[in-house]
């Protein structure tokens, strides 16, 4: 079974791209399935089902969605194998832009849209930076110049990935994408594999359910902003704070 992790900001077109792409694989006689990860609610599972795609959904609820993803991903892979799938896709939104579900030796896809602004590629961090394949959507409604500027910004952040333009509504580019998803290694398990980036440092009192505001209630991993620092200087929490996953690379 081929396993593909798809991530991307909310509303970038992940679900539409996945549905259009899997349609081509289905037409070629392959069995396809999706595991959809979200936070509080999603109807996308019904959308997948309506399109004849086997689907399971996971709602992180009170947990950090990315921690929830990584704690469940092996079970998802085993579900896909038990269903006899040829291609399994996991879909998750990189909600705080700090995380990515991408796993070493598993095809990593990031979906990002032309309308999100030229600053976005730089902002969304590891889910774009650690991707093997970048899908740029919504190209049909912006100018050629904006598409070129946006693609150049994406290239500036990720120098290695293959870049494809796909339209989630018309499906333009989705056939091409489907051929890429059947390339590469089969995945029998992700047990023992490593995330490409470590998850964010957490565990402060708010992680544990604290709702009151004020220094007295803040414990654990807490950091204060430096409001003395004028705009234009290097701000807190920049890319230098990333700790690449594993640490043995």
């Amino acid at each position, binding site marked *: 079974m081929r396993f593909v992790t798809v991530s991307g900001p909310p509303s970038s077109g992940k679900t539409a791209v996945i549905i259009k792409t899997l349609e081509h694989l289905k037409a070629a006689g392959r069995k396809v399935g999706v595991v959809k990860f979200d936070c509080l609610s999603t109807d996308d599972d019904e959308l997948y089902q309506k399109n004849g795609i086997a689907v399971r959904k996971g709602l992180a609820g009170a947990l950090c969605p990315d921690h929830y993803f990584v704690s469940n991903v092996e079970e998802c892979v085993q579900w896909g194998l038990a269903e006899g799938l040829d291609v399994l896709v996991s879909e998750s939104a990189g909600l705080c832009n700090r995380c990515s579900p991408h796993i070493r030796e598993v095809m990593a896809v990031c979906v990002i849209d*032309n*309308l999100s602004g*030229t600053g976005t*590629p*730089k902002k969304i961090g590891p889910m774009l930076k650690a991707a093997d394949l970048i899908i740029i959507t919504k*190209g*049909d*409604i*912006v*100018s*050629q*110049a*904006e598409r*070129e*500027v946006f*693609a*150049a*910004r*994406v*290239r*500036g*952040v990720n*120098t*290695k990935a*293959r*870049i*494809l333009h796909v339209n989630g509504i*018309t499906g*333009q*580019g989705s*056939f*091409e994408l489907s*051929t890429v998803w059947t390339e590469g290694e089969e995945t029998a398990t992700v047990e023992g594999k490593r995330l490409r980036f470590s998850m964010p440092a957490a565990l402060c009192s708010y992680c544990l359910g604290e709702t009151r505001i004020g220094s007295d209630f803040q414990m654990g991993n807490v950091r204060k902003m430096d409001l003395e620092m004028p705009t234009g200087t*290097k701000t807190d929490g*920049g*890319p*230098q704070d990333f700790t690449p996953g594993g640490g043995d*690379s």
Partner: protein
Amino acid sequence: MSRELKSLTVEELLARWPFAQQFLGDQGHENLTDQPEAVLAEVLDSELLEQLGDFLADMESFLGTSEQKVSEVTIRGGRAKDGSDESVRELTVKVGEIVCIVGPTGSGKSRLLADIEWVARGDTPTGRHVLINGEVPGDKWRFDSEYKLVAQLSQNMNFVMDLTVQEFLALHAESRQAADPEEKIQRIWSWANELAGEPFGLDTPVTSLSGGQSRALMIADTAVLSASPVVLIDEIENAGIDRQQALEILIQQEKIVLMATHDPILALMGDRRVIIANGAMSQVIEPSEQEKANLTELRELDARLMGLRHRLRRGERLDTI
């Protein structure tokens, strides 16, 4: 290349590859320009150095594309929707040519254009093959945004950036690493003004341009700054833009123009037109002498309608036309 980069200082790096500044900025290292003496191996980790090497290599091949210019694109026929052989077995379009594509909705126009964009190798539903300069092209035409074969213009496209015309063009020129950006910006702006009936300034926000002005700017910008050798046009509206001159600008900038249109004037302006039916290219037609003569008449008709528009705009009555 990363081995070679290690020993360079920031100043030497930027002197040789000015565009490295963009990379440093994107990677959150813009402050390095304040330390021109710093040696790269000391300020960048090995992974970043390797990425910088890749980026520079990409950019160099990207800037060098003019040497390996695309002069023609060939489409080798595949099969129709019913599996029969496509009637047109081979179509070659050269730089400076305009080919119109006509056919009813659902006939396969989009698939033809997608086959060209994806430089098909018999691996798409139509089984077509696309050659560049007579040769089977490499993977870079599929996956490197620097090598995109096709630039697209359609009536549904809008500017979404909150920038003035000047800032917008400067940003595009910068992302393309264009030589002499000032000259290019001036040229695009003045061409766009010639194409659009109503003039606009360099300080106009792109989002407040009219439909005709937007289209004019998109066409002039694509002609001058886009790297893609093929320009695909999905109709050009008839209002507020000089369509003939628009096509001439693209041709003059050595583009291959493919135009999906059902407008008789545009269709007759093409050097040839391809008829699409049942998922295949069924015929290639060259305009006849009679059609060319009719084009003159159609243009006169068009100019008359245009004149009436102007009169309406000025508040006149149309009792006599």
